[in-house]
């Protein structure tokens, strides 16, 4: 077994005639949180979708624990310890919280165990299981998305802009939940973010994506903020 949880090499993928990812090289160590940053349209979300098997790989390799997994469908990846918190239309707004959680489980009998796990980080969701998801606030919805990704106790979490449009207090709760998950179970997290402060606070390492490639990266430390800000061109 390799030390890396996830190894991406030369990954190419895209839509139609367009290659969004143009040779992504990235490795995520076991138990590590990596914040992936970059401006809009640079391919961060596309990378997560490709990793989840939602977009076909056009070139390069993806390895999970050293095993090649490119081309596997989402159901296989979810069953093999990958959790995913998507950004676009991430919830069934007209269904209850319970049904949203159920849909991420293969069998309903797994629900009690999953709920137990949810209660560790966001217990408020358990009191409101029958509430329609669309009536939750933006921050609450984000916590539900994260709970759903974490409840099957994955070894690798792919998280897409979980702090977007969320008030600072909720961002802190999310940060705490992620750290707890890392400390308790040694989960590895690929965190796609635009919120610089949050990302550098939670992550162990950072990387910046530009035009479909990883252009820079390093350990999260005091000086990182300015380096990343320069990349975001402000």
């Amino acid at each position, binding site marked *: 077994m390799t030390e890396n949880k996830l190894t991406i090499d030369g990954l190419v993928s895209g839509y139609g005639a367009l290659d969004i990812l143009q040779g992504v090289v990235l490795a995520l160590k076991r138990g590590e949180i990596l914040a992936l940053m970059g401006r*809009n349209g640079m391919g961060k979300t596309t990378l997560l979708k490709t990793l989840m098997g939602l977009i076909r790989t056009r070139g390069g390799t993806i390895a999970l624990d050293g095993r090649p997994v490119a081309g596997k469908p989402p159901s296989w990846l979810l069953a093999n310890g990958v959790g995913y918190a998507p950004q676009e239309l991430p919830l069934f707004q007209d269904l209850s919280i319970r049904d949203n959680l159920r849909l991420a489980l293969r069998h309903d009998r797994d629900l009690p165990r999953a709920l137990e796990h949810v209660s560790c980080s966001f217990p408020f969701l358990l009191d409101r299981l029958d509430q329609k998801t669309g009536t939750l606030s933006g921050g609450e919805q984000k916590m539900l998305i994260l709970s759903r990704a974490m409840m099957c106790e994955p070894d690798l979490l792919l998280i897409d802009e979980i702090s*977007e449009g969320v008030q600072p207090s909720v961002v802190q709760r999310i940060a705490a939940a992620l750290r707890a998950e890392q400390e308790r179970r040694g989960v590895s997290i690929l965190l796609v973010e635009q919120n610089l*402060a*949050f990302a550098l606070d939670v992550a162990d390492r950072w990387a910046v994506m530009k035009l479909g490639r990883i252009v820079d990266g390093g350990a999260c430390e005091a000086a990182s903020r300015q380096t990343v800000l320069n990349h975001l*061109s402000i």
Partner: protein
Amino acid sequence: MTDQAQSTPAPQQLLTRHGTGLIALGVLGLVLVLLGPLFLDRFTLNVLTRSMIYAMMAITVDLLWGYAGILTFGQSAFFGAGAYATALILTHVGGGAQNFALALVLSLVLPMGLAALVGWLSFYHKSTPLYASVISLVVPIVLTQAIFAGGSFTGSSSGLVGYPTMKLGAANYFRLAGVALILFAALSWVIVRSDAGRLLVAIRDNPLRAAYLGIRTQRVQILLMTALGGVAGIAGFLYANAGRIVAPEIAGFGFGTQMIVWTALGGRGTILGPAMGAIGIDYLGAQLSGAMPYLWQLIIGILFVVMILFMPRGLAGFIPRRRGGAPVPQLGALPDHMQQRDSAPLLSVSGMRKSYGDFVVLDGIDLEVRPGELVSVVGPNGAGKTTFLRCLSDGTETIEGRVLLSGQDIAGRPPEAVVALGVGRKFQVASVFETMTVAECLRLARVTQERPSLWRRAARITLPRAVLDILSLTGLDGKLSEPVSGLSHGMRQSLELAMVVAMQPRLILLDEPTAGLTKAERTLIGEVLIRLTRDLGYAAVLIEHDLDFVRQISKRIVVLHQGRLVMDGPVDAVVNSDLVRSIYSGVAHD
């Protein structure tokens, strides 16, 4: 290359090698139909007469479905209307030259009126292709039931028979139907290859872009449907005379689907294929159905399913398609059009608020843009920028507040009407016509300024000089005859920009024109935008993420954040403000 003298006269264009072959084919066909009666027996003559009338119907279905993308089950209704108009006149008024003339006129006018009504029902702002198909199903059913309900007047279920018809004889009916078919096929062939024909395909492939080029897409579709309703009516007139019987089935939905089968098997999107499909299937059917009536239909059914699944292009798919036959058109330059530089605002937005249910996307937006101004809109993801552009260019979006363009309220105006007020919109993902060549796209962008010809392809496309600059800077001028589908991402973005500028709008709306472009391409687009606004007086509203780019090209920036316009000012003041810094680094998520 831009100011060359006019050359390549129009007739030459019809006579490409492909064209010569088809003209020869047409002449051969004419000879065959004129001489055919000399060596065909009477049964065959009668069957082929009917088949050729059906072939005309197949071509009308093909023009609607194969070229204009309107899947119609209802052409039979117009055919039936024409046939019944004829039979009713001849039955109840009687024969005689003037009555035949009356029947002919009615079998043209009635179906056209009906088709115009159906077109009005089927095509409206935001109507879907499925809805048009739905309506086309209902029309023949209603008509059939009306015939049933007509009692002895319409002959009810047994139809009308024994009315006086034109006494031409089987041979001459054969010749008449043959000549009518060949003329109609030739006409269709010329039209689909003309600029107007490309317009139909453009509307099929990308109705949104077509509307944003100012093309009144619904009107074009209604006109097409009306014209083809008239053709179907004339075919019905021929049928009622040659067949000497009309029955409710010919107006029905079953017959309408038959036409689709002919078209699909022959090959949609070609003229010859559907015509041959109709003749072949109907003729073989008549020969074989006596011996094995159900088996024949079974075979046709199976063939049809297999074709739809595996060969959407039909039997014509076996014939290799020739590409690039048309000569490359030349580009001509229009003098630069200096926009008026009065101080009155061109665009004036006041109190705009847009929400989806409880979810407020935009709130309290006020903005004025004057001629010659380039205003950049920045803000993080989800700030409502793209929604903002849409509300500026589509008056049918329900908003609160007002959007005035040159003093006129856009409320209620669909995109093509807003375009007519002088707005051009470039989409975030380049919206061009995938199946067309670069030259065709550019020609289409000029459609509202220069009426497209029904007969030919323009040999020369005149474009504003600013467009020619874009083309030569990006190298697109060397790819005029190349299909858009083969262009790179950057080339498409440039082409769409060129198309928008070619419309000569007074206000250009651009949604991230540089996303995914290389550094060199960005610089180039930046230069073009500066020239358009600073030198030529166009106004532009630009959505952009790249603050470096914004800094280079614009003097004024507005910042959208969580649906509100939080800053509006000169570039440096905005870019260096704490607010923008905090928004972009994620601190200002309140």
